[in-house]
């Protein structure tokens, strides 16, 4: 049960139930749909980019607590950051949930992301935790949709 508690921390349950930035930015410049064909989860991420800074980001869709909380946390983490910083967060996050790296506590936002470190103990749930991030990356790279097959 301790691994389960690690996965479903209060923070995750809260963001799963009350996701932040669960709306689309008015001035969105980039967007993509993310799709997990294994579970049927769908998400749309829209981003407002100005220069190389993410001014605003939001998402909508349906998913499990892990995927919804991860999307919510992601939007809070990358808002106001540069594209390069967002990319670095994603790389760190991906390595962490795959169990390939300890959460690198560079700053406050990454510390928040570290609540998903418990996902590493549940390999079947890695795609839930990364769907929003893959979708964000696809949007920034100009792809319309991404699928976590």
């Amino acid at each position, binding site marked *: 049960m301790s691994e389960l508690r690690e996965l479903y921390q209060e923070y995750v349950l809260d963001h799963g*139930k009350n996701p932040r930035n669960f709306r689309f930015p008015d001035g969105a410049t980039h967007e993509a749909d993310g799709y997990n064909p294994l579970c049927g989860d769908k998400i749309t991420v829209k981003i407002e980019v100005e220069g190389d800074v993410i001014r605003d980001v939001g998402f909508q869709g349906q998913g499990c607590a892990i995927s919804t909380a991860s999307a919510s946390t992601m939007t809070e983490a990358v808002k106001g950051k540069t594209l390069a910083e967002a990319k670095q967060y994603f790389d760190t996050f991906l390595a962490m949930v795959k169990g390939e790296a300890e959460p690198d506590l560079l700053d406050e936002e990454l510390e928040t992301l570290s609540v998903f470190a418990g996902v590493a103990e549940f390999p079947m749930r890695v795609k839930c935790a990364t769907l929003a991030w893959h979708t964000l990356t696809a949007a920034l790279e100009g792809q319309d949709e991404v699928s976590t097959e």
Partner: protein
Amino acid sequence: MTELATQPSAATSPAVDAERVRRDFPALHQQVHGKPLVYLDSAATALKPQAVIDAVTKVYAEDCANIHRAVHMLSQRATIAYEAARGKVQAFLNAPQKKEVVFVRGCTEGVNLVAQAWARPRLGAGDRILITGLEHHSNIVPWQILCQQTGAELSVVPITDAGEVRLEDVEAKLDERVKLVACSHVSNSLGTVLPVREITERAHAVGAKVLLDGAQAAPHVPVDVQAIGCDFYVFSGHKVYGPTGVGALWGRAELLNEAEPYQGGGDMIRSVTFEKTTYASTPTKFEAGTPNIAGAIGLGAAIDYLEALGRENVARREQELLAYGTEALKTVKGLRLVGTAPEKIGVLSFVMDDAHPHDIGTIVDAEGVAIRTGHHCTQPVMERFGIPATARASLGVYNTEADLDALVKALVKVQEMFS
């Protein structure tokens, strides 16, 4: 559906001794996350009794040879066992002739075989394939591919809020344009038993042939293709307690005879020259290459196992469990069953307020309870009910009331965590 024992029996089922049955399945006797395994995912794949494991082992340990090809003793033993397994499948379905049984990789390949070998040369623009709204993707996509190839159209019978297929809705879609009706005998995501004999009668009345996907029926109820009257029937070995990678297609001899070969290769020929090749007769025509010999023999052993238990007994026992599980799940706050047809088999699909099926699956797994979560390869069913996914507990002959109690207990933990 009089041939199906779908109502719980008032009597107990002395013929299925749960404790004895459980001893036959080695995979049941392990711990998961420190808890005894409660396996409620038999609709995905059934666990294997020791008799099946032994039969497969014996093939590789003692009778390891190719079939139909050599005169030596090992090949003779393997060939005899493989063909004996075909006979067991024939009896299992009450098929008229053994040569009408084709070994395939599973239900999926069986459906694709009928689509490509029988239907493709016969269908064209203006023709229709009729399926239902509760089909597994394996009984949707092969027909979509066929429609793209031939110009035929796919037509779909809608399902009711309870997950039923009503005969009047079938009739409304049936006319002389329909050349084939392809439908489940039992729904994999909802458990609904379809009125297949009546559907077959209606289809034949307009000249359509009928293929039944028996993946979820064959493990649970006696199947009699002659009583049903259908033209093709497919099922998978691994869902009837047999090995993965093997299944069977039964088809009427005249239809298999008029079908084209499915794949070209060894064993499926009568004679080969560079100018002209003639094909073997059915079923060899459809079994190109070295087949899954051990799988087929293991499937034969699984059929022996089910027949020894008595398929009526198995059906009756599982109905008792389904009734027990249905009532037990109703006690979980915020839980809603999806698929509430009066005629059901072995499947309890559900959703819960506030908890996504994937979270349910992970949390009950931590309690040792194995269920399936997701769309169950039936995305149109999920869309029909306006949900992304369900959690699904499905029953096998080794399950007990205690398994369902463990599920309910684990679901209460889910409810507590997410409420």
